[in-house]
């Protein structure tokens, strides 16, 4: 069950701000191209608003709190779903990896439902839970379960037996083996699963919001599009891309710290 896409390359560490500018130069060039095309009038300015208008819209949304509020709602929903999904996923993955009965119960369930796009459950959840926070959060929980379960399961199964044997020879009681040996040894695949789940959490929150909610940045972008406020639509989108990028980077930082003891040869292997 290969659900893990290869890790994106990730930018190299910046040694100076000059380095950062050089690495992001292609994006800046693209932005300049955008602005040029927009100003030239080749395309209807509604379809391609200039960067100046987009940034102005962004500023306005930030100033009157609309941006902050909606972003907060979306982030809250994503992280709540991610947190619940992670805890449940780790527990289920642990159970499946250590108990044949649990594997027999959850295995078929996971195998069947993994090909179901969780966003397809949103209309059903709207029927059940309405258009508030619950629908996006439940959807995100379900979507996050899979990568975390798979990461935890494979991580625990792949713990080298000699580590467990050494721990046993040194007198580790059975109840401590899981907590003191297996979990730390499996930390990298588990965190990788959580990183993938993080990406899913944003996608599914925004999907739910665009389909039907009252508030949220997805809904905001959608409504701005419906109402023809295109500069605002692009501005909201820009905010979303930035937030997603920054949270992924944050996750990578966290992983680097938690896994600072990891042999670099293992770090580059695909999870």
């Amino acid at each position, binding site marked *: 069950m290969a659900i893990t896409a290869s890790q994106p390359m990730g930018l190299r560490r910046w040694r100076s701000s000059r380095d950062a500018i050089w690495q992001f130069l292609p*994006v800046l060039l693209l932005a300049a191209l955008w602005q040029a095309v927009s100003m030239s009038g080749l395309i209807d300015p509604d379809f391609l608003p200039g960067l100046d208008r987009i940034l102005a819209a962004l500023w306005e949304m930030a100033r009157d709190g609309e941006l902050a509020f909606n972003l907060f709602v979306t982030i809250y929903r994503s992280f709540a779903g991610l947190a619940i999904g992670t805890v449940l996923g780790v527990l289920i993955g642990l159970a499946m990896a250590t108990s044949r009965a649990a594997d027999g119960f959850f295995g078929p369930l996971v195998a069947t439902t993994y090909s*179901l796009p969780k*966003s397809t459950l*949103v209309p059903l959840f709207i029927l059940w839970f309405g258009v508030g926070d619950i629908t996006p959060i439940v959807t995100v929980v379900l979507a996050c379960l899979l990568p975390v379960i798979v990461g935890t399961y494979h991580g625990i199964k792949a713990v080298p037996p000699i580590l467990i044997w050494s721990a046993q020879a040194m007198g580790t009681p059975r109840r401590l083996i899981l907590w003191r040996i297996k979990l730390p040894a499996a930390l990298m695949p588990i965190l990788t699963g959580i990183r993938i789940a993080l990406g899913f959490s944003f*996608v599914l929150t*925004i999907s739910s919001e*665009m389909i039907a909610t009252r508030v949220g940045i997805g809904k905001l972008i959608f409504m701005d*599009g419906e109402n023809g406020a295109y500069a605002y639509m692009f501005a909201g989108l820009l905010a979303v891309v930035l937030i997603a990028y920054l949270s992924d980077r944050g996750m990578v930082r966290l992983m680097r710290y938690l896994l600072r003891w990891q042999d670099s040869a293992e770090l580059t292997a695909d999870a």
Partner: protein
Amino acid sequence: MREPARQPRVWRRVLDAVIYAYPLILVIAVWEAVTELGYVRPLFLPSVGAVVRQFWPMLIGHQIVEPLAVSLFRAFTGLALAVVLGTGIGLAMARFASARWAFDPLVSLAFPAPKIAFVPIFVLWFGIDHLSKILLVAFTCVFPMIVATYHGASAISGIVIWSAQAMGTPEHKIMTRVMLPASLPHVINGLRVTLPVALISAFTAEMVAGGGGVGSAMMYAQRFFQTPTVFVYIIVMLLTGLLLDLGMGRLRQRFVYWEQHD
């Protein structure tokens, strides 16, 4: 003297499959019990029978195959675009430092971004029908394909390329005749992972923006509280995903027979 046991073997496999799937049977049993005993209103959870009974009229009423064909058409076209583009860019990035420089930040920015948020833009630019959905699918799928191809191509030992160069292979042939076949296992693996993404993107874009396909049909049913219909569509999407994944597994076996397994 042993008689070939044919009958018991088939039974054995059926029994094994049933035992394996017992949690699913359990879920369906609980579902049926809950609805039969009247614990939930049929609006929220129709009985298993109601869902099954809904299937046939929908099938002959052109409500399953046609929208599904539309969604699959969009998903596959977008995926094909993404594969061609993504493979090309990935190979270029592995071969040329300039390509790496140009695309690295774009891929890094785009990879974690929820591409579904771009649906309103694509609808604005390309309308509500096929084109916007196809391009959204392509947009969503191109990045994992780039990454998969890049990883595969980067892993090619340098001496393989040097050997090809020593034998007088022109540059464009290096990419097509050496790098591409060598990265094929990774590309196909990327494809396997990206195929569900293509489906999901197509379905979700339809749910958000309408314009035909299973996603819109499902939203339409939801708006009119036709819960059994919604369930049928969920099952249809589930089965589609399962079948496609099975098919992908077969494809991999056929085309990547030379791969060494360490």
